[in-house]
């Protein structure tokens, strides 16, 4: 696919999304999980991210995300799920089954490590997809180029454990059903500027990457 053709397809799809979402704005469902971790953090992330998306793309987005448990009957209404936190995560058996069903059925999960949730999240996702492994995505993956260009992969927002950030994908029958941004904290980067005191450029990078993730989930 030539870059021009790809751009055409993306623009076309964005227009389509824009049209479709005229009735139903795009939003994300935040997973309320058990185990004691702070599923509720980053309260301003999606407010800012959705505002940024509205300004930068044709996509009509909701004002903010919705929060619910995986077992909620409305959970499947949302095409993109989001999970983040600093600590323990625990899915019940029912949640494991439903999350698997959701992801196999076309849903997409964006997990963002707020620093501290990595072992718990990996453990729980192993329950959901015992057969699959997280694969680190190359910088050429469309998620880094779908709308904004990230030639060096994920932008680095916060230091956390130090070292470079990592973007992992979980694949089911060739489709990436989950994206896990690790050791950067895109969500924190999207928060109100005075919360973490991130410089504007860092914030913008985070918002751009967030946009890419959402658009990737919608387009691919």
């Amino acid at each position, binding site marked *: 696919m030539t870059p021009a053709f790809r751009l055409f397809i993306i623009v076309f799809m964005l227009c389509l999304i824009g049209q479709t979402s005229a009735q139903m704005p795009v939003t994300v469902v935040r997973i309320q999980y*058990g*185990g*004691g*971790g*702070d599923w*509720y*953090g980053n309260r301003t992330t999606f407010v800012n991210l959705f505002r940024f998306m509205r300004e930068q793309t044709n996509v009509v987005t909701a004002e903010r995300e919705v929060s619910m448990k995986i077992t909620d009957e409305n959970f499947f209404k949302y095409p993109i799920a989001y999970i983040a*936190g*600093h*600590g*323990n995560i625990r899915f019940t058996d029912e949640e494991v089954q439903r999350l698997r069903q959701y992801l196999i059925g076309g849903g997409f999960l964006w997990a963002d490590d*707020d*620093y501290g949730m990595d072992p718990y999240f990996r453990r729980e996702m*192993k329950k959901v997809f*015992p*057969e*699959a*492994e997280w*694969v*680190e*995505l*190359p*910088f*050429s*993956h469309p998620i880094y180029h779908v709308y904004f*260009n990230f*030639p*060096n*992969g994920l*932008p*680095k*927002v*916060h*230091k*956390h454990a*130090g*070292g*470079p950030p990592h973007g992992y*994908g979980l*694949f089911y*029958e*060739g489709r990436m059903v989950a994206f896990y941004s690790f050791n950067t904290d895109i969500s*924190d980067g999207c928060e109100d500027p*005075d*919360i*973490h*005191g*991130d*410089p504007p*450029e*860092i914030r913008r990078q985070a918002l751009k990457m967030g946009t890419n993730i959402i658009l990737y989930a919608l387009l691919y």
Partner: protein
Amino acid sequence: MQNDRIDRIYQETYHKLFVTTRKKYLFMFLQRFLTGALYVLLAFLGFIFIELLFDLPSAIRWGFWGLGIGFALVYFFWRLFSPLKLCLFPEHEEIIRTAREVGKHRPDIQDALIDFLQIYEGRASDTDPVIRLASLQQLYRRFRDAAFSDGIRFGALTRDVRKILLSGLLFLVLLFLFPGSIQTAFLRVIFPGESFEPALPFRLINLTGDIQVLKNDPVVLEGRIEGTVPDRLWFVTEMTAPNGEATVQERMELSGHTGSTFRYEIPHVMEDFRYWFEGSLEVAPFKGRVARSEVGIVEVRERPFIRNLQIKLIPPAYTGQSPELLEANNGEIYALIGTRVEVEIEANKPLREAYLLFQDSTRVDLTPLGNRAKGHFSIWRNDQYQIRVVDVDSIPNYQPVQHAVFALPDEPPTVEILQPGQDVDLGDELVVPVRIKLQDDFGFQKLWIKGQVIRAGSTGDTSQFSLEVPFQPISDQQALSQFHWDLTNFYLVPDDYIEYFAEVWDNNTVSGPGVGKSRTFVIRLPSLIDILEESETALTDRLEETREVVEEQRELKKKLEEIAREIKRQKELTWEQRKALEEKLEQHRQLQKKLDEIQKKIEETVRQLDEQQLLSPETLEKFFELQKMFQELATPELQKAMEKLQEALEKMDPRKIKKALENFQFSLEEFERRVERTYELFKQVQMERMMDELVNLAEKLREKQKEINRKLSEKSLSPQERQQLANQEGSLRKELDFLEQKLEKTKQTFQQEMASVSRELEKAQQFLREQRVGARMDSMRQQIQAGQQHQAGQTGQQIQSRLETLQSMMQQTREQMVTEQKEQLLQAMRKVTEEMLQTSFRQEKLMQQSRKIDMASPRITDIARRQSQIRENVRHMIEQLIQIGNKTFFLSPQLNSILRNMMLNIGQSLRRLEERNPRSAAHAQKEVMANLNQAILSMRSAMQQLAQASSASGFEEFLKQLQQMAGQQGQLNQQTMSLFQQMQSGRLQLSDEALARLAAQQEMIRRSLERLMETSGQHRGDVLGRLDNLAQEMEEVVKELRRKKLDRKVIERQERILSRLLDAQKSIREKEYSRKRKAEWEKAPLVKSPPELQKEQIYREDLLRKEMLRSLEEGYSWEYQQLIRQYYEALVRQKAQPR
């Protein structure tokens, strides 16, 4: 024989007579015809004359023609027919008559001829043939030689012809003299049926006639007037319509003509046309009639023109851009300098020559080939050009179009240092993450970081540097350079700084590389003194600002009270009062804003201090608490009260305004109290920070001295290294001076608040003086400079040892300060508690007395007096508690409400006593007593907490308790779950005892939680918010367990409790992370991309997964399912191992 001859003679003679007869009648016919013609001509001329004179009507003209024709017919039959007939067909008698006439006219012949004919024809038949013959011969001899037609002279007709000619000449002369009139009259006579108008008195002559011109050239067409000058003149053109069939006429009136000539000019002739002039007179009888000139033809010859223009732009190779074909016939060029322009034209006809003519008359020839021509040129500047062509007939194109050439310069590149993007101070790591963004239209060649190192902290010299750095293109026009700039090699010492900027060259090879430079930034290695001085100033300023806010707030409150008093006296609110209220509201908002700003600035300063590890954990924690207090100054109640007041002001409802104002004032009092408390605590934290700084300064000095000592002991130093070390020792000396100043300042600050601390600081000062630490440092610096490395090392060890002592002294002083603070607080709290106890006893006595008396008792007054004393005592206690609260975070928020209720109940008691209702008063007094007891318990609890706390604030204790509680809950959950599972599997019968034990444990945790909530200050609101209703949840669990009920709901509830306890901890930790993270966002290392995804990576689990799912569907128990999962997981992992 003779007869034959006679016959022949007869024949001859008869023939001669026949011819003569015909001549005779021809002559007669002609003569009569000429006569008739003359008559007709004369009649015609006469009639023309009459017509000329009288302009006869058509009928008369027809009459004339009737008469004329009648006359002609009569004349013909009468005079012409007979001679014509006889001329054509002469009869024998006529021949005989001719013979007689010939005899008459010729005397020599006389009757001979007639006789001959008669004899021959036998009229004398009785005559002898010989005689007859002889007679005939004789007669013949008489006329044999005679010409019979001698008498006919055609010349006689000449006269008639002359008359006719004369008449015709006369007509012509008249026609020449009066051409119009005569001609018209003639025509009117000729065409009697037509209506004839009078001829115009002028003629138009086309002087130009037929002409050839070039297309688009001008043409002048001229004419002349003969006769009267017409009133109006037109120029008329006629051309063939594009379809080639119809013609299109156009009339243009010529105005302003004078004299007999006129002209019409066409500026651009485009195609062939016919033309003529027309004129008219506006006077009768010529009005409405038009005279027309002869028709001329203008033939247009086509110029060459450019039918098609095609330009191709070939950008310079360095741009990497593809050639661009401009839109057809677009000659305007916007192109980069150095672009080659290829021009190709197609003309309408074969060309002999073609060229581009530029503004400065430069000419670029194009090579012609038939109708086409091509050539090229390069762009170096803005210009204009025309394309000129000449056809094979040497005709040039008409007014060539002027095309513009816009030479676009290759814009110089821009470079921006995104990170650090500001002047920064170096931390311990001496590494600066750098991110540089490059932007250019066509790419980059090289990127440098250039600048100079200013060694202000050491040698004082300046050195330039230039460092080429790599970059990665991120798009056609942008590139990014990211790296960690290791500044170790610059050997910076505190106060040294680097001024640097990024410089980028683009890859313009045509006009040389464009250069872009970024802003210049500074990286400084700050000295400890700088950091401390800056933070000192910043925090002192913030303290001062907070004090100002406190004063402004007091002032604002006073003003509001005044306004409130005024409003109470009036029914309606004046405009001025309303404005004043709005103004005060705004003033208050500004105060809140100011406090927000102060808080942010404090946060920034604390962050800097923390980065340099200049604050103890306790002080840091206090700063966090302080910030939190700042954030919570404006309570939701206050915000709501402000909103209500604003609404009421907008609605102009005096009743609502008064009410809203009261509420606002009430909330404002709380706000004022909080601000004052924050200010007091800020002051205290400031003092603690000063102590921290001393401790840390001493520690840093020791560490630095140790480092210098280490370097001295390692190896023999080069002169340069010695100089550097000497400079470092010099810096250390300055820092020691700074420490001494700080000591003095801190000593003075503590002199009033804590004399003992001040004394300790005095001792430290004395120690420094006695031990001559500064002098030793000077000495050591000199020794290093002199190359006495060994001696310097020894001196360094002495200094280090003294600095260690100093550090120890500082730490002890700090500990003493903390202990004293706690002691002072405890003492104050004890004092208030004792007062509360005494007051409680007094209140109890009073209550008992009140119960015993009746309303008529004279002791009521005495009781009321003593109740008033108690009120004063309570007021005094509240003031003291406020003082204590200003110094510690420990006082419970509930204490406030207890004291408030206490005051209300005392007021109630006093009112009842005034009403002489001692029983009711006793009831209120009992409430007061209860309040006092509660307050005492709260105070004791606070004292207990304070006594146990390692710091005065209790933050760590709070967190520990929370953790402990979560641990207990976790254990409890496990026990409950275990019991539940056993019960489910039927392995265990639940005992009441086990359930009661679980309930008791849950109850214990609940109480601990309540205690924690009670003892934690209001500054824990955020965490407590998360624990909201948690105690209630625990209570529910306890109830269920006591009801001997253990089901899934209980388990879930317990999980929820644990989850929320963990949440609360996370919440605190999260905040800590955020605080710590702020300075660490910038790390952005460059890494290689992970390898491209392989198909097997994406699909490889499929087979295993399918197998596993198939297994799971076969109805195994849950445990087996888990085992199967683990098995397949292991397989997957095994497969994922790199080979």
